[in-house]
């Protein structure tokens, strides 16, 4: 078994991030000392983080747990599609961002029948726009093309 397992790498990264953040709390000019200092509480929290993350890394190095291999392609596509959708939603409007996201996500998740996929990809975002923009009058971001979607 390789020494670099997913769990060990994650534990190491968590320890390093904690240490990097803790180092940020020193050497900066903040007003006040003791309880008045803005870094008083974060220093306690981050010291604790570093201590428990170090213990976690030691525990991971001592045990040989190999996690299940994820469906990497599927999870990467869904994660990327979600991020693109979240970024695009406020720029091109909820409906225009949600339709391609829904289609890509459904196909990636193994749903291949074109009619239901198309119906859900178009129908669900349209229903949400109708509910929020027109019924509840809580407007979702609209597209630059037309105010009603």
């Amino acid at each position, binding site marked *: 078994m390789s020494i670099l397992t997913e769990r060990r790498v994650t534990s190491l990264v968590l320890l390093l991030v904690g240490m990097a*953040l803790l180092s940020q709390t020193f050497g900066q000019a903040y*007003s006040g000392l003791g309880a*008045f200092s803005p870094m008083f509480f974060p220093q306690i929290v981050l010291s604790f983080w570093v201590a428990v993350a170090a213990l976690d890394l030691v525990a991971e190095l001592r045990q040989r747990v190999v996690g299940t291999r994820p469906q990497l392609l599927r999870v990467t596509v869904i994660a990327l599609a979600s991020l693109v959708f*979240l*970024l695009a939603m406020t720029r091109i409007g909820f409906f225009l961002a949600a339709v391609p*996201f829904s289609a890509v996500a459904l196909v990636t998740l193994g749903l291949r029948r074109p009619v239901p996929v198309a119906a859900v990809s178009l129908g669900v975002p349209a229903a949400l726009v109708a509910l929020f923009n027109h019924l509840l009058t*809580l407007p979702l971001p609209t597209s630059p093309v037309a105010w009603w979607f």
Partner: protein
Amino acid sequence: MIELLPQAAGLIFTLEGLLVLVLGTMLGIILGALPGIGSTVAVAMILPFTLGMSQAPAILLLLAVYAGSVYGGSISAILINTPGTPQSAATCLDGYPMAQRGEAGLALGWSTIASTIGGLTSAVVLLLAAPQLAALALNFGPIETFALILLGLTCIVSVSEGSLIKGLVAGSIGLFLGCVGGDPITGEARFTFGQFQLISGFNLLAVVIGVFALSEVLIRAAAKEEGTQSLVSFSGIVLPPLSAWRGRIKGLMKSVAIGNGIGILPGTGAATAAFISYAEAQRSSPNRAKFGKGEPDGLIASESANNAVTGGALVPTMALGIPGDAITAVMLATLTLHGVTPGIRLMTDNPVLIAAIFSGFFVINLMLLPMGMLVAKGAAPLLRLREGYMLVLIVLLCAVGVYFVRGNPFDLLVMGGAGILGFVLRRQGMPMPPLVIGMVLGPTLEISLRQGLIITDGSFAAFFTGHPIALVLAILAVGMLALPLITALRARRSGTA
């Protein structure tokens, strides 16, 4: 107050009053069940509609939406692991595991009954002891609050079953996330790395929805199976039989007392109450070993406490004119808009109106049960969709919900980032509830600790010498931390004997 009830009934049981109660409760449940809308947005949405109404129906409408939305948050928390409101985050811990093992209807049954009892009891407390409780709340300073939050944080231990160290790492990440943004005392920016969007910190609901719901979508996408099955099986609320309540009433009453008690403390809120109540239930329940795996005691603790907060929160609002949170601040504004000045004289100047509000609140909580059953019945066909369709719907609803909190595109990115972080940490075997508990309780813990140290001139020991309430709470917290260690030692001894 009791002698005014007949006159109060005259204000409530009118056509306008009854319509307001029914529609308000139902709308509140629906809005609460939609992730991200939350009680504050729901109440603020309704506020303009109250302007044309008379005093009592206007305030009752807001109360109905408030109580309904707090309960409604549990529906999505149980069915799709997406808390509709932050106060329902603790409900996910046992509600969703129950749903996953095919008991979604029963989980909703427990939560509905617990919510109803929590709300009803808080209404009775309001009717009987509002002025006295308001005076008591004034004795609760930062040191007592610190000890209370410390007690709440100990539930990280109980929800980290399997790996305490991993739970503590997740808890410290949550505590750190709560530190990001402006310092609560000096206002200086912390850990913003030049990003102005971070000055106000990470949005709690964006992080909660990301680590619970979005990470669940990614975990399911990463699984080998194709998403063609239903996510959970659900056909409607199933009420637990009376016999199932045996041994649970004491815990329920304790959670209701915790919810009421925390509700009257300004600035703590229903999410804090739910986690503290969960921690206490985990300490004292005979079924503590099953917590986090779908134990009804856990569900009862969080749901009864967060609904009991609704009545408790009205105590300082009505009796002292001090709003405990954003929702009660909106209520305060409504009272003022309708020519009612909340404060010490409110009870003496408008006794019939106050009796109508408090007894109307009782009726609202009675309606949670039938209205909840009706709304859940309507949601049932949606949950029979294939998993793939549900996962896409969850992402869309999460995005809508987080967008509505502040209308800030940055919150959407935070949710996406939290989802990916949650996915990575869950693959590591790290439980997510400690992260959320840390983030919910962290800011109050920090401010109460620092205020306490400033009051005592930096002496931490003075926290417990002159403050008996804080001392009792601290002893309870130490007991909570020691309990798993003692249990493990006993188990080891009996194993070697």
